[in-house]
């Protein structure tokens, strides 16, 4: 009893002492005893802090009994008891194995014990570049992850992990934010995706605030994701948002970025010949009629001809150009010299400016943590009249109701407004359709600009028939400024997602989580074509609402069964309800009142709007078990049962499971000091999947009535009430090693994934009355190698150099289709080109017409043209890259750090409709110039012009027949290009103001000033005049360039203030 009193007295005296301030000194070193200069020393829970001197020493005045939080770049942050003479030894950061990673369902695990591939990226790594799109910023930073993004403003990002698995379904990775699945559906129309025009409205992953991201963990294989259910079969991008640290923290980011086009990705124009498909027309390649009213016929540029195979330029020749028919033009009824344009379409592109401002506020007390963030992004594009504005607010709160019960809630609200997104594909609303395919080299773009702005009228160079009043209208192409300022789209997407949860710690080994999460967005897309444009004026609106609710109840169990054996287990239920609802309405036959965009302004009777309502429910039950033996052996098993409403009622439930194991073998090799850690892991998993909505029962399609006659039709795809769930089987083996105190390490994975029994609309003979029928058929195999490597080649007190390398090689194969069906067409493009899943080929073959060959040589007909296949089903390309990779280098010198990312894509092919049509129109310099005889190739054959197509004739001898340049066509197979590239994707130079200086301000905790560049330089590419990465949209249809946009290079600076 006396003893007890003594102890109590001691404790009381301690607490008495607590109130006193004392000054302590200490030193910060690494394991070898070397001083860590510039280390930050902070009193825990306060803003009191200092930095270590060059010899690592520091002095700080703290409250008695306080703790010090000491951190330094390249070292793990650590807490120490504040006592004088403290020698704080910091551990070097071991990026590979010491990390705590967040796994499925938000369970935090030590990476040491993780039996499957998961790669974590810090929020800083995706927000640093200030793109506003966290998904796009992952490019090159994670192995196994293929990111593809086009150059459109606010466009969608293709995010595929370990290759495309589903033949016709979704192949995009699932996004999960703080345990809540966030819909990332690509909502672009199928016509937009295949290049038939439309806008890229982006995908919803862009609604996530990059500044709120603490970490992104990419779970690549089915073993890691099986608990998330079917949707996770394509891998999961798991985002954990920031949680408040103790005390109050405010971070402000403010930056501005400008964008200009990379001219190496835009065409050059020949300057020798002008408008026309030939050099005849009415006179010498010109139209010939009286323009100025003097009774004499005049030479007129053939304005209706959207090509440049016409008359040779001649500055002495006076001709009437398009502006001679524009009464507002100073050149009205005046002839001008016949010369090439001064200003090419390149000058149409402007400098885009984007500003990015965000404020994040977080605070934490004993019981409550709260955070509030607001981000605003304003971006104007490189096309006139284009803008995307993004506002994101996020809020998070957690409250410890009791020691055991924590309640938390988070909500993320975003509003994205677009105006004048870039038109895409083969459409007059895409200015590049004309710039790259159908253009007259005599048209001066700046003169077109002046012509439009003079009266805001549709003054085109492309008059239908300038000899008549009624013909002085556009035949194919509007004035480009008219297109941008009159025929623009507008869109808005408002989204709210978040959750409320209760976590109850029943005992120290059992906890219970109940959570309701909601994701809801509404979208409005309005498209218009003004009265006075080429084509029928219209207005359309597409309203879409998506909502999803998840109810989760999860019990977590964590107990050491014996001293050596730890058991973790979980059991849970997930009820998911989601519904997509949409209405599309459009005017019909034109607009009554110009510039009024309302459905009721339709000239003709409005057709019935197209409605869709697709509700879905999935009930999932799951359980998991993790056995850990002495921290080096881990065995994982999970099982899940889903019941999905999209499957036939009698076959709507399915089970799947995963088994994984890992062995941290380095624990047995303590003598090998060069080996910091080593782990081998192995797993097998299956994931079931359900059917697309509405593929079970048949229904008729509504067709607009024909007068009084009502019309219905059978749909093109036959449904199937005998569908079974589909399944993905995945095997994976991985090795993780770290050497030399973790200065060097890598993570290698080999995987094989087979997706079998797929539910696909099998292409059948259309003589059945259907194009396709839903069947369980088809198998796709993906196998590949993923490699992540990091190293710190140089590390001194003031200077460090770190390298991160990611490399992925995926091989993809369509192993089976159905019966005699050997091909599944995913999309068709112009020019008889299609993108397909072909049996025995990688997913995504490009098919089209090819040149017949003889002994491996192109076969040439007797008349000098290529002998081409009559079929368009020849495989002429494959969209899959051979490998992709990224190298990220960071150099740090004192407070200055320089980082750059080189992003590499090796191989993969694409079809360029732009280059294909260019051969018809003679825009590029290659279509002019000299032939092998040294004569202008466009000269007539009599004058020594023409070209000899390389190849052999039927007798096997080299072709010697010369043909005129505008009279032959070369099949699409010759317009397949290597889509590989090496890009300097990111460059950041950041100066962090010294901690000592900051401390003096007493206001700031940190000030960082960064200079940022994105897509600055395409170091290497094999495709002229275009960006090989440019794509129409995210989705399964890749490998078509049609009206491609040039790369936008971004430069900017950002100021980050921490309070």
């Amino acid at each position, binding site marked *: 009893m006396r003893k007890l009193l003594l102890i109590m007295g001691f404790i009381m005296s301690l607490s008495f002492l607590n109130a006193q301030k004392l000054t302590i000194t200490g030193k910060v070193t690494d394991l070898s005893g070397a001083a860590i200069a510039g280390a930050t020393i902070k009193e825990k829970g306060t803003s009191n802090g200092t930095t270590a001197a060059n010899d690592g020493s520091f002095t700080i005045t703290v409250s008695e009994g306080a703790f010090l939080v000491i951190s330094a770049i390249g070292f793990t942050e650590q807490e120490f008891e504040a006592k004088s003479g403290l020698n704080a030894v910091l551990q070097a950061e071991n990026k590979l194995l010491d990390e705590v990673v967040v796994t499925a369902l938000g369970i935090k695990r030590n990476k040491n014990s993780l039996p499957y591939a998961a790669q974590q990226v810090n929020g800083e790594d995706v927000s640093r570049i200030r793109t506003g799109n966290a998904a796009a910023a992952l490019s090159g930073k994670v192995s196994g992850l293929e990111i593809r993004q086009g150059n459109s403003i606010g466009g969608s990002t293709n995010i595929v992990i370990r290759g495309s698995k589903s033949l016709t379904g979704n192949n995009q990775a699932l996004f999960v934010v703080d345990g809540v699945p966030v819909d990332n559906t690509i909502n672009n129309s199928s016509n937009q995706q295949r290049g038939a025009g439309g806008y890229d409205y982006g995908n919803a992953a862009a609604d996530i605030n990059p500044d709120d991201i603490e970490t992104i963990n990419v779970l690549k294989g089915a073993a890691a994701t099986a608990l998330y259910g079917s949707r996770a079969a394509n891998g999961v991008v798991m985002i954990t948002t920031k949680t408040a640290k103790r005390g109050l923290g405010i971070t402000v980011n403010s930056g501005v970025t400008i964008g200009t086009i990379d001219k190496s990705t835009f065409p050059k124009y020949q300057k020798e010949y002008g408008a026309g498909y030939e050099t005849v027309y009415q006179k010498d390649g010109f139209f010939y009629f009286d323009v100025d009213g003097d009774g004499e016929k005049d030479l007129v540029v053939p304005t209706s001809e959207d090509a440049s195979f016409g008359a040779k330029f001649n500055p002495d020749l006076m001709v009437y150009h398009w502006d001679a028919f524009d009464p507002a033009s100073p050149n009205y009824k005046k002839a001008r010299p016949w010369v090439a344009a001064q200003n090419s379409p390149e000058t149409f592109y402007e400098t885009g400016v984007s500003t990015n401002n965000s404020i994040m506020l977080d605070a934490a007390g004993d019981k409550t943590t709260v955070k509030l963030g607001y981000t605003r992004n304003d971006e104007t594009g490189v096309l006139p009249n284009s803008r995307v504005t993004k506002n994101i607010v996020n809020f998070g709160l957690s409250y410890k109701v009791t020691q055991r019960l924590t309640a938390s809630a988070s909500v993320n609200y975003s509003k994205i407004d677009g105006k004048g997104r870039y038109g895409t594909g083969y459409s007059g609303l895409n200015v590049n359709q004309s710039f790259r395919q159908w253009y007259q080299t005599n048209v001066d773009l700046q003169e077109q600009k002046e012509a439009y702005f003079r009266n805001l009228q549709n003054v085109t160079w492309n008059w239908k028939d300038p*000899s008549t009043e009624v013909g002085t209208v556009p035949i194919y192409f509007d004035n480009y400024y008219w297109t941008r300022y009159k025929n623009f789209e507008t869109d808005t997407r408002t989204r709210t997602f978040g959750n409320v949860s209760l976590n109850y710690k029943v005992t120290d080994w059992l906890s219970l989580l109940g959570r309701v999460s909601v994701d809801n967005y509404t979208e409005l897309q309005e498209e218009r074509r003004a009265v006075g444009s080429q084509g029928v004026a219209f207005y359309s609106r597409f309203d879409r609402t998506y909502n999803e609710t998840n*109810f989760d109840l999860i019990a977590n169990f964590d107990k050491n069964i014996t001293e050596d054996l730890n058991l973790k287990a979980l059991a849970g239920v997930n009820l998911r309800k989601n519904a997509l609802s949409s209405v599309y309405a459009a005017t019909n036959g034109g607009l009554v009142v110009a510039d009024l965009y309302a459905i009721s302004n339709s000239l003709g009777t409005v057709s019935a709007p197209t409605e869709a309502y697709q509700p879905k429910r999935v009930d999932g039950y799951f359980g998991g078990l993790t056995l850990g033996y002495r921290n080096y052996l881990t065995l994982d098993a999970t099982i899940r049962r889903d019941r999905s*409403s999209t499957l036939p009622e009698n076959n*709507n439930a399915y089970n799947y499971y995963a088994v994984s194991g890992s062995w941290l073998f380095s624990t047995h090799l303590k003598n090998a000091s060069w080996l910091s850690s080593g782990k081998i892991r192995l797993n097998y998993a299956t994931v079931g999947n359900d059917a697309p909505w*509405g593929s079970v029962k048949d229904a008729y399609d509504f067709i607009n009535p024909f007068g009084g006659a009502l019309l219905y039709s059978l749909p093109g795809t036959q449904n199937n009430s005998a569908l079974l769930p589909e399944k993905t089987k995945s095997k994976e083996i991985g090795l993780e090693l770290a050497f030399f105190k973790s200065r060097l390490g890598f993570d290698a994975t080999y995987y094989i994934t087979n997706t079998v029994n797929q539910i696909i609309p099998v292409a059948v003979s259309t003589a059945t009355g259907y194009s396709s029928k839903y069947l369980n058929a088809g198998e796709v195999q993906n196998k590949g190698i993923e490699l992540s490597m990091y190293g710190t080649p140089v590390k001194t007190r003031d200077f460090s150099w770190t390298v991160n390398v990611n490399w992925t090689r995926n091989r993809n194969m369509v192993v089976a289709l159905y019966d005699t069906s050997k091909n599944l067409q995913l999309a068709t493009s112009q020019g008889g080109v299609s993108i397909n899943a072909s049996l025995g080929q990688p997913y995504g073959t490009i098919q089209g017409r090819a040149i017949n060959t003889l002994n491996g040589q192109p076969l040439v007909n007797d008349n000098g043209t290529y002998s081409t296949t009559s079929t368009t089903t020849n495989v002429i390309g494959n969209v899959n890259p051979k490998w992709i990779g990224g190298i990220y280098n960071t150099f740090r010198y004192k407070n200055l750090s320089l980082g750059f990312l080189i992003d590499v894509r090796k191989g993969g092919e694409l079809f360029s409709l732009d280059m294909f049509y260019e051969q018809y129109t003679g825009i590029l310099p290659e279509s002019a110039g000299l032939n092998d005889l040294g004569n202008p190739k466009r000269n007539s054959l009599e004058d020594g012009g023409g070209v000899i197509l390389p190849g052999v004739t039927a007798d096997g001898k080299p072709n010697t027949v010369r043909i005129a340049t505008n*009279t032959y066509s070369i099949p699409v197979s010759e317009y397949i290009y290597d889509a590989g590239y090496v890009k300097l994707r990111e460059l950041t130079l950041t100066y962090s103001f010294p901690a000592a200086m900051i401390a003096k301000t007493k206001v700031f905790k940190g000030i960082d000033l960064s200079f940022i560049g994105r897509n600055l330089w395409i170091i290497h590419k094999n495709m002229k005049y275009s960006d090989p990465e440019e794509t129409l949209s995210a989705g399964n249809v890749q490998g078509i360039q049609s009206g491609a946009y040039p790369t936008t290079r971004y430069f900017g600076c950002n100021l980050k203030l921490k309070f």
Partner: protein
Amino acid sequence: MKHFKILFPILVLAACTKDISSYNEQTKKPANVPAATLFSNAVRNISDGLANASVNVNVFRFTVKHWAMATYQDEAQYDFTVRAIPDAWWARMYRDVLNDLDESSRLIEASSTLDEDVKANQLAQSDLMQVFTYSILVNTFGNVPYSQALDNSILFPTYDDAAAIYSDLLARVTSDISRLNPSAAGFSSTQDLVCQGNINKWIAFANSLKIRLAMTIADVDNSAAKAAVESSAGNAISSADENAMITYLDASPNTNPLYADIVLGGRNDYLAAEDLMNQLINKTDPRKTKYFGPNNDGGYAGGVVGKVNTASEMSKPSSIVSAANAPYLFLDYSETEFYLAEAIERGYNVGGTAASHYANAIKASIRYWGGTEDEANSYLARTDVNYATATGNWKQKIGLQKWIALYNRPYEAWTELRRFDYPVLSLPVGAVSGFPNRLTYPANEQQTNGGSYTQAAAAIGGDKVETKLFWDVN
């Protein structure tokens, strides 16, 4: 034990399951529709295909040299593959027409409320449109899936012999004629886009269709053709009032497809071909100004098929052709009279003379296009038109006039051009093949139905456009 309390809510949630299949119900599309709606939709789809001038749908106007193109020459030069025209044509016939007709027949057959006579009429109407459509398929490709087509259980049907299909089609028309009962109704006047509910007109259409089918095979099976033509000649379409046609509406989207293409689409590059235009000009044909509008100078001129032409110098399709409510003729009086003229020449007993039927046919065509009786008579009085004095044998005389009369019905003109081999048209500039006697099978068939495709290609003598069809022997 107390921890079982925790598991309890999980079990409750797990237990609160109900039937979830209702989530997969179509709530925006019907599972049941009236049979007539499918019939009407099929009729409209076949008409849209035949009337169309879109280069993705129907390019036969260039093939038969009625039209030329100003700028883009691929289709005029017989390139059918780049735009997958065989796929589009085949899919339209089977998927967009025959499947809806077949479904319509199935629903009529299954109806327990329909009057038996009405049912018989509707089944005959639906069947006649199926026969009409199958004949297009055979005349376009040769052997095609028939006995195994439109069968839910057969995803990759075999192809039937074209001649065998033809004889079955003839048998079906004969049976349809016997089923049609004018004293009962068929499809209602609003749903019947062909004859507005007039069963007598259907009977005339059926008999003319039978004559068409029979005449098509006359060169290979004269006796069957003779019997069929003679049995139907008396009941076939006997005046313009009985023309089987669809009349498009003034308002989109139900206008004639040419209106959408030319007027709404603002196309300026469809031109008269010199081949047809020269015939119209040289014979001062009253249909010249009905078929085409003038060029910029107010004159009439045709372009060269396959070559770049200056649009302002050339005649373009007339405003009659591109009118929103312009009709499409499935089968008309003029065509029937041409068949009868031919029948006389082939020695069939159908009454009248070849010359009288020939004159009736031409006069009916001129009158249909808005020419006057006088204009028709003076045209017929020309020595180069009059049956007695025009040059050439009966095939050449009828062939030429039928080719002129079948303007704006490009598929029919193509079929008749192949049958008569007259007028002789030179290949277009830059032709990528010989004259197309058929279209190649769709790429989709090659890729999904490879075995049947290979057999069929061998059976018809090779899957090439130059391969002649079974009836194309003389």
